C-alpha cells in the first residue's frame, strides 16, 4: 500500500506549473474575447455617445462643442473637459415632451409585448405539440418572414391597413362594415405592426421551453384529478416561464426604442422615444440632446435586462 501511495503522489504533479499556467491562459483568452468585443463595440461607442450628451450644440463639424482632442495639448483637452456638463439632461426634465415620449414608449411596448405573448403562446404551444415530423417545417414557417426586408414587410401593412386598403376592401365586400375603418396612423396600427414584426422573437423561446417539457407531467396532473385548463395553468405555464420571460424581453426591449413601425404605421402624431430621437438627430441636428435621450433610454432598458439575467440565473440554479 505504501508503495502505491508513494508512486501515486508524484504522478498527480506531472502537470507542471508552466503547463498549468498555459492552460489557464488559454481558458482566460476564451473568456477575454467576448469581453473585448463588448469593450470595442459597446463600451467605447457608449462612452462616445455619453461624452456627446455632455456637450453643447454648435454649428460646426461635428455639430457639437467641445471636441475633445489633443491638438491644443493636454491643457486644451482639460479645458474642453471642463466645459462638459449635464445641461442636456436638465433640459430633458424641463420639456414634458421627452418624459411623455418615454412613458408612451414604455406603455406601447408593454401592451405590444402582452399582445405578442397572447398571440405567440398558442402558436408555440401548437408547434410544440405537433407531430415531431412536421415541427421543423413549422419552425421554418416562423422564421420565413426574416427572409424579406423588415422595412418592406412594414410597408406592406400600410397597403393592408389604409382606408382603401386590402382589409377594408375585404370587410366592405363582405358587408361587415359600410364605412372604411381608420386603422392606419393610429396606435392600433402600431400594435399590429409590433406584434407582427416581433412575433418570431416571442414564439421561438416559448417553443423551445414548451418543446422540452415532458408531456407526461400534464397527463400526471390530469390523472390526479386536474382538468386540462387547470393543468395548463398549474403545470405547463409555470414550467414555460423561462420562455415567457425571454420572449417578453426580446420583444419589449427593441419595441421601446422602435422607430420604423411608429413612423410608418403610427403617423405623425405618435410620440415614441425612438421617433423623438430621430427628430432630434436628423431634423434638429441636435446631437448632444439626442445622445442624452439615447443614454436615458439605455438606462431605462438596462433594468429589464438585469431582471432577465437574474431570472435566467435563477432558472439555471433550479437545474432547468
Amino acid at each position, binding site marked *: 500500500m505504501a508503495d502505491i501511495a508513494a508512486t501515486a503522489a508524484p504522478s498527480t504533479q506531472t502537470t507542471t506549473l508552466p503547463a498549468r499556467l498555459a492552460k489557464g491562459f488559454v481558458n482566460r483568452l476564451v473568456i477575454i474575447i467576448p469581453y473585448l468585443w463588448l469593450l470595442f463595440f459597446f463600451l467605447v461607442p457608449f462612452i462616445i455617445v455619453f461624452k456627446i450628451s455632455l456637450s453643447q450644440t454648435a454649428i460646426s463639424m461635428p455639430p457639437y462643442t467641445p471636441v475633445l482632442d489633443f491638438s491644443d495639448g493636454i491643457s486644451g483637452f482639460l479645458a474642453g473637459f471642463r466645459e462638459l456638463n449635464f445641461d442636456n439632461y436638465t433640459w430633458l426634465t424641463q420639456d414634458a415632451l421627452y418624459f411623455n415620449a418615454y412613458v408612451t414608449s414604455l406603455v406601447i411596448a408593454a401592451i405590444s409585448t402582452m399582445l405578442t405573448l397572447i398571440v405567440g403562446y398558442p402558436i408555440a404551444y401548437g408547434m410544440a405539440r405537433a407531430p415531431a415530423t412536421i415541427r421543423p417545417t413549422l419552425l421554418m414557417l416562423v422564421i420565413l418572414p426574416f427572409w424579406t426586408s423588415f422595412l418592406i414587410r412594414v410597408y406592406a401593412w400600410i397597403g393592408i391597413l389604409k382606408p382603401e386598403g386590402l382589409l377594408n376592401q375585404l370587410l366592405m365586400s363582405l358587408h361587415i362594415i359600410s364605412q372604411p375603418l381608420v386603422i392606419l396612423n393610429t396606435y392600433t396600427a402600431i400594435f399590429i405592426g409590433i406584434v407582427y414584426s416581433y412575433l418570431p422573437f416571442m414564439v421561438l423561446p416559448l417553443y423551445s421551453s414548451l418543446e422540452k417539457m415532458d408531456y407526461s407531467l400534464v397527463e*400526471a396532473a*390530469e390523472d390526479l384529478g*386536474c382538468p386540462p385548463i387547470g393543468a395548463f395553468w398549474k403545470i405547463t405555464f409555470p414550467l414555460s416561464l423561462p420562455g415567457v420571460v425571454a420572449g417578453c424581453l426580446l420583444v419589449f426591449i427593441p419595441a421601446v426604442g422602435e422607430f420604423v413601425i411608429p413612423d410608418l404605421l403610427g403617423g405623425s402624431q405618435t410620440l415614441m422615444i425612438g421617433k423623438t430621437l430621430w427628430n432630434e438627430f436628423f431634423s434638429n441636428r441636435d446631437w448632444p440632446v439626442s445622445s442624452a435621450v439615447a443614454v436615458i433610454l439605455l438606462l431605462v432598458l438596462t433594468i429589464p435586462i438585469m431582471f432577465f439575467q437574474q431570472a435566467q440565473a435563477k432558472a439555471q440554479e433550479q437545474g432547468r
Partner: protein
Amino acid sequence: MKSLGSIRRDFAPWNDPNAKPYIQFDKVTKKFGEFTAVNNLSLTIFEREFFALLGASGCGKSTLLRMLAGFEEPTAGRILLDGQDLRGIPPYKRPVNMMFQSYALFPHMTVEKNIAFGLKQEGMPGPDIERRVAEMLKLVKLEQFAKRKPHQLSGGQRQRVALARSVAKRPKVLLLDEPLGALDKKLREETQFELMDLQQELGLTFVVVTHDQEEAMTMADRIAIMDKGEVMQVATPAEIYEAPTSRFVAHFVGNVNMFEGRVAEHTANATRITGATGAQIVVDNGGNAAAGSDIVFAIRPEKIKVSSKKPADAVNALEGEVYDVAYLGDMTVFHIRLDDGQIVRASALNASRVTEDPLTWNDRAWVSFRPDAGVVLTR
C-alpha cells in the same frame, strides 16, 4: 395436497365462479392509424389483486394501462371498472391513479406539494391534506425530504415520491407503468417487496406493466403475458412457469427445452410421444393432444436430471454427451448434446457441497425426467 410451484395461494378470486370482476376489458381493440396496438382483448382483474401485464416492448401492455387511465379511448370494446363503463370519462374524473414510468414529478413543486397536488384537486380541506401528506411521507420514509424539489432527490427517492403521490388519493386502482424500470438491480429487488407490502397495507388493486419477468413473478398474484396486442395466457406465476399453454409463453418466461414431436398413442394414464429425431418420451399429462397430432414437449432445465449412468427407474431417459458445463455456485448448468443432435439444457441445484457423480466436458451422460416434469403444447 398437490399444487403447482411451491406457494399455496389463499387469495384466488379468479377460481371462484361467484367472485365479481373489478376491472373488465371486454373485447377491447385499440388502433393507432393502421397499427393495431391491442387486438380484441378480454381480461378480468379482481379487487385487491396485484395484476401484472408482462410483455416485450410494443406488445400493447402500456396502451392497455393508458386506456384504463383514460389517456386513450378504445377503438372498439368496453372497459368496465366496478361495473361502470369508463368510455367517455376523462382521466381527471376516473377513480384510478397512475405512477408514470418517468415518475412525472412536477419539477417546480416540492415533494410535499407534489403529494398534495391530487388532494387539492379533490377539494380536501387544508388540515386533512397536511395530515394525509405527512402520512404518505411516513409510508415511503421520506419525512425529512418534504421541502426538497424533485431534482434534489436520488432516483430511488423520486420513485417513492411518485408512489406516494399516486396512492395519496386512495384510488380504487393504482396503475404502475414500469415502476422499477429506472432503478438499479439491488434497489429494484428491495422495492419489489416494498410495493407488495404497500399493496397489502392499503388494500388497493394494483395493475403493473413490466417487461421484467422476474419482477412480475415476484410481485403479481396473476400475470397476463402479452404479445402483439393479444393476451397469450393469464395465470398465477406458478402456472405461467409450470403450465404454460403455448410455446410463446413457455419461451418468454424462464429457460425451456423444446422437443418437436408427434403424439404416438394414448394409453390408460400416459401419452407416448415420438420426437422428430426419434426420441421416445412418455408423459402423463398430454391428454389434450389428439393422437397423431404434431406437438411440442416443453421441459424446464431444473426438471431434468443428469447422470453418468442410465437411472434404473427412469421412465424417460435419453443418452448424449456433455457439451458444456457452467458452475454458477448455487447450481450447475449442463448443456447435453443428445445422440440425435438436440442440445438439452439441464440445471442441477447444488444442494450438497460434494457431488457423487461429477461430470465434465465430453463425458457420456444420461438425461432423465419424470412423466409429469414437462408440458405438451399444441400451439
